């Protein structure tokens, strides 16, 4: 097992290099430059060229890549063109905000959705099952931004329960416990939107995989030998049924850092999602590459985690 993990970790190196080359080439081959969108159109062209030369815009792609990778290997991810600040600082500032949203909403949705799915499966074709299924389908088919706008309309505008956007009451100068409460108040809407949307797929997955397992011979055997339904479900069925859910969960973990771009944008939440989107629009190359690389690392680790968890959940799976 340890050997396997080490081998997988080593394998990540060439994968990451490949990923970095692809991302690097893609973003640099895209037309446009970091100054085209942000500078007064009356700025003379030579000025812009001068500024571009200063940031090494006119170097050839292999030269740029070599420069970048040699610095990245020493832990220097570069300097954002737009923010004129080390990329690490910018990401560091945003990552906490995104984690706050995504960890909370992911936990909430798993904690609520998986039991709902299991109940739904054990009571297949009951009223509960139908209602849950209908809601799950609504959740899956609603686009995040539309759902977010609906929530804003009902909860923030009509009922005035929550603030519409941002992370804190601006200009309030709250500190300590009041600040914590204020942030919690602001994060309610995005958390509701994110977790309701994620819940839908978790619920459907756990429902169908439990149903799948119920058809297996060993469940029939368990029932035949007179085990109580409770034991059948919780000892025999559930453990096997949760394997596909682990896959889904792990892949969600991979995107936990990317944030939900649309949800973050609608609520002006200062997280990674909006950062990546903005940095691509502004052609802030160092920032785009650093944040997308971070995402790839995250996804790779999530995949590894999924494989390890498989082995833990299912003794038949062995890695050598």
């Amino acid at each position: 097992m340890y050997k396997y993990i080490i081998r997988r970790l080593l394998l990540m190196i060439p994968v990451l290099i490949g990923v970095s080359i692809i991302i690097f080439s893609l973003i640099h081959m895209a037309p446009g430059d970091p100054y085209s969108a942000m500078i007064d159109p009356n700025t003379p062209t030579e000025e812009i060229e001068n500024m571009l030369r200063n940031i090494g815009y006119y170097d050839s792609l292999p030269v740029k890549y070599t420069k970048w990778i040699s610095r990245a290997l020493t832990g220097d991810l570069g300097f954002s063109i737009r923010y004129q600040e080390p990329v690490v600082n910018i990401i560091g500032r945003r990552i906490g905000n995104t984690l706050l949203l995504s960890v909370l909403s992911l936990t909430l949705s798993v904690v609520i959705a998986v039991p709902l799915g299991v109940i739904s499966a054990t009571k297949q074709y009951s009223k509960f099952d139908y209602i849950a299924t209908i809601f799950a389908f609504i959740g899956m088919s609603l686009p995040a931004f539309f759902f977010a706008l609906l929530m804003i309309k009902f909860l923030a505008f009509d009922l005035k329960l929550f603030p519409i956007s941002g992370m804190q009451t601006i200009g309030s100068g709250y500190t300590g416990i009041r600040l914590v409460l204020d942030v919690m108040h602001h994060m309610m809407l995005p958390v509701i939107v994110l977790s309701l949307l994620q819940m839908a797929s978790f619920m459907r997955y756990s429902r169908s995989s439990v149903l799948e397992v119920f058809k297996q011979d060993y469940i029939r055997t368990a029932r035949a030998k007179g085990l109580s339904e409770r034991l059948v479900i919780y000892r025999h069925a559930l453990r096997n049924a949760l394997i596909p859910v682990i896959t889904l969960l792990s892949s969600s973990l991979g995107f936990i850092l990317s944030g939900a771009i649309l949800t973050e944008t609608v609520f002006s939440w200062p997280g990674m999602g909006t950062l990546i989107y903005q940095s691509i629009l502004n052609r802030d190359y160092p920032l785009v590459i650093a944040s997308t690389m971070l995402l790839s690392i995250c996804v790779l680790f999530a995949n590894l985690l999924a494989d390890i968890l498989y082995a833990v959940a299912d003794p038949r799976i062995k890695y050598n």
Partner: protein
Amino acid sequence: MKRIWTMGMLFLIMAVVMMGCTGTTDPKEAQVVTPEAPAAEAPAAVESTPESAIKEGGVVRYAAFGTAPGLFNPVLQSNSFDVYEMEVMFEGLLRKSMTNELEACLAESFSVSEDKRTLTFKLRENVKWHDGEPFTAEDVKFTFEFICHPDYAGPYSAVAKAISGYDEYFEGKADHVSGIEVIDPNTVSITTKEVDATMTEKICTSILITPKHIWESVPVKQALEQTELLRNPVGTGPFKISKFVPDQYVEMVANDLYWNGRPHVDKYIVQVANPETAQTQIINNEVEMLAVKQMNPDDLDYYKSAGVFVDTISFDAAMNLGVNNSNELLKDKRVRQAFAYAIDREAIVRDILYGYGTVANVPYKPDFWANPEDGLNAYTYNPQKAIELLEEAGWQYKADEKQMYKDGKPVKLSLKYYSGNKQVESIAPFIQQALKEVGVQIDLQISEYSTMLADMKSGDFELYIAAHKNGVAGDMKSQYNSAFTPPNGTNYSRFSNSRVDELSEQGLRLLSTDERKPIYVEIAKILNEELPIVYLYHWHQGMAMNSKLKNVQLTPNSMLGINYQTEKWYFEE
């Protein structure tokens, strides 16, 4: 009310008389240009409400649709989200008034020498930096030398290069720039290499003065790395920084030391918001002001019923159908004129802008001084005329197929436009349909703005839709002079006309609007006839604000549109 008006006039007259006195002290100066009124007491008095109704205090929150990087040094960079704040924290020597004339700011008056190359500024006395240090001529000299420095890589090198003595300083042959001279602590003169109206205007208004005592010890090369200094800017403007939270908001507080009096409102905050939800925010009183992107009647009614006031502002720009004049099919002016006739621009203004705009036939907006009052072809919608013109240009129209042919081949053009602007996204299919009516097939190609701009630069386009901002001081050189064809400039349409080349050059050498007017009027008339690009419309941008907030003056000279005399803003009881 009448009495108030008279008082206002009196103020204005007194102000002008006083300015006149200070301006004419030096008999050597041939031409004395005095800014209209100092600190514009007059408009405030005209709009006046009894003093008692002005509530001191309150917070103005502006919903900006993007984040400020927080590099608050006005000469180092010009990212618009930072400029929004710098406009109220920093000031230039002069500024543009509501009537678009040069007006006193940090300089209370200025004069131009006989050869028009030297500008002498008499600085306002008793101006203090936000940290209490006095503002002097040394700060002005420092700021201009900063942009002349060899290590300077900001957006104002072109202004620096226009100053005499720049080359010697840049090459290290001189310790100072000879064209920037401190005469006494309150007088400074700047000499340019040659007479150039746009540069003169940029020196006066675009370069915002930065404090010498803060930046002096920082090597120019490392200026952009001074995160602490950049995030805690010290200026002379009516508001000063109090809190910058990256990615969330910039909070500014009233400057108690402001030379024109402390602002009535206590705080001015620019916060990040989402355009889709900002409307709800202003109605819920979570923000006080925001730019309205779509002036559709339903939204406007909604604002109105919620008690939100919507004002409009028109920027010195036009939305255009850009045409590649170097393209074989499009280099004939009759083709471009035909396109203008084929597109019902009245309908665009009426239906897509909901009436909030005017049809454009020249780059200048109707109230600009260089806009010709008559003698313009209005290109009123006339598809029949468009077909005739195209046939004159050698195209063949096959009425049965409703298709134009040129040299036996059906005419098909591509139209590039950009995503993210709802107006542009609606105009593109409208133009496609309009040109189809005259037999021209249009292939729509949408892309992100910077992608389209790259194509405009390289010349890989036939038609595009984009807004063009006019040059400083009505300048047309950067957009229509053939010497400015990419990659050498921003003449994206690749227009070439010897008379325009000559006139646009000549206009720069004249400083006063009276002298410049006939030249730019003539350029406008040529552009109207030659139609290097098809001018579509000038739009009116909406600005929604809390109806209790008063005295906000909308001006195209502010990038945010509202940052003019912010010290006069106040909340009504």
